[in-house]
């Protein structure tokens, strides 16, 4: 039932770390958006990129995907430049980055995830249709396959984007705010899919804005504010000091944060881990 067509667990892993970033600086005109980023993302983790507005979270993903030019620095995916490793990468852009009134349906959007495999000029056929339907099924959207995309709710649109990335059958996924403004059903569907992917040793790099769920959803954290403030396992990096360093004084308003941080430091280890 599961993964009839999607190749997988047996696929040989490419050598090297999923993502390595060295001395990356990105500047739009005068202002640096990212400054001297050094980053290594290990295999098979669910990684949150967290930071205040304007911290450069989306820009970091786009720089890794070669969508914005780096002013300086090097980026590699499994040891090679992005252009050579595209087939290993899946991408979920921000939902608001496209016009959802575009005349197309959910199935069609998911099939776009296969265009890279199909190649130029050839059209998607029955194989692509079957894979796309399976991917829609995994996010609970198979009943909406022929729905015009503007008739879907925001959460459903987000799940269609996720299904499109699943169709890419990638080794590492980059997702830009997949949980932003979605309903509870969608949030549950997305996190289930992300966990299943991690169980199959996929690496997931997710721009995330909800500090309340960082600890529950993710096992690796990249705390960003133009520079990398902290990067590592959530238990070690999701601390009050780090959060204050990234967010400034504003973090004091976040009440939910104190409990785990204090418990963590007083009892010695992850008392509130799930």
């Amino acid at each position, binding site marked *: 039932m599961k993964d009839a067509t999607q190749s997988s667990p047996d696929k040989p892993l490419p050598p090297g770390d999923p993502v390595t970033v060295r001395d990356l600086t990105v500047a739009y005109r005068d202002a640096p958006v990212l400054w001297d980023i050094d980053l290594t993302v290990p295999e098979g983790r669910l990684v949150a990129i967290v930071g205040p507005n304007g911290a450069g979270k989306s820009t970091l993903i786009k720089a890794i*995907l*070669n969508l914005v030019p780096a002013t300086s620095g090097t980026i590699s995916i499994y040891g090679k430049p992005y252009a050579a490793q595209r087939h290993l990468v899946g991408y979920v*852009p921000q939902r608001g980055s496209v016009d959802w009134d*575009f005349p197309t349906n959910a199935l069609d959007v998911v099939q776009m995830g296969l265009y890279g495999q199909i190649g130029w*000029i050839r059209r998607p056929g029955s194989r692509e249709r079957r894979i796309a339907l399976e991917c829609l099924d995994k996010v609970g959207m198979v009943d909406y396959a022929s729905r015009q995309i503007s008739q879907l709710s925001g959460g459903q649109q987000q799940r269609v984007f996720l299904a499109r990335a699943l169709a890419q059958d990638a080794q590492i996924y980059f997702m830009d705010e997949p949980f932003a403004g979605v309903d509870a059903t969608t949030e549950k569907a997305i996190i289930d899919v992300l966990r299943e992917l991690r169980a199959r040793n996929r690496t997931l790099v997710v721009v995330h804005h909800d500090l309340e769920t960082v600890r529950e959803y993710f096992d690796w954290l990249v705390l960003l504010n133009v520079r990398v403030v902290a990067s590592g396992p959530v238990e070690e990096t999701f601390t009050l000091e780090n959060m204050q360093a990234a967010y400034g004084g504003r973090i004091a308003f976040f009440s939910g944060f104190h409990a785990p941080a204090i418990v963590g430091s007083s009892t010695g280890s992850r008392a509130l881990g799930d």
Partner: protein
Amino acid sequence: MPDIFRDVIFDYTLRNVALGSALLGLVGGVLGTFAVLRRQGLLGDALAHAALPGIALAFMLTGSKAPIVLMVGAAVTGWLGTLAIIRIVGDTRLSEDAALGIVLTVFFGLGIVFLTHIQHSGDASQAGLNRYLFGQAATLVQENVVTMAVSGAVALSIVALLFKEFKIFSFDPEFAASIGYPVGRLNVLLTSLIVAAVVIGLQTVGVVLMAAMLIAPAAAARQWTNRLGSMAALSAFFGAASGVAGAMISVSASRLPTGPMVILAATAIVVVSILFAPERGIVWDSLRRRRLRRELFRADRTAPA
């Protein structure tokens, strides 16, 4: 009255005018679909205006008024206008509407300067270049129609071959880039095809009105369908139908200019589509809303039992 239908087939002039207008509508309709969906309806307007100096320059350089020569000139400056817009948007802080405005006015201004210069040069053969401002379909000869048909066929074949690529590029250019499509080159190609559509229409509707033939059929088609393929096909049909209708009206009511009649026919289709298209039409929309209100009102009065 049925004479007009017979004439479309057998009358040499009317046949050329009708075919030329239909071709313009067909090609403009398909490429306009992408322009409208990418919210670049005004791009066609800028490109059409950018074609004018090319027409004048082609005449100044060659002394020929052969449509093929002028079309090449129009295509060259239209294409330069395209590159200018893409560069301005990419390299400066100006937004796209400013880039479009700059290219439109600068190129059109240059075109008028060249045309005025030609008129005052005392060259008697120049008479008639002005017709590219508003178009003059009656001057279409069979040779023009054949040229339009061939270039239109090339443009439409490219769209047919790269339909999937143009679709993903129009819907989600960032994702397209992430899976390896050269979006910069796709942009130049698609815009160049719009230039081709503009050039095909110049002799019939002229630089000033050409944009309408890119926008109107596509805007109307969007009202009736939720699929890109059928939108392009319907837009092509609306464009061609406006072309034929405009040609027939302008001939049967003497002294009405063809180009503007084609545009008016397309506009009529837009108005009907916006009002009456089943899902998106304003009329059904307001009827649905009124019925819903009535039902809510009734439910409100009967509910507390």
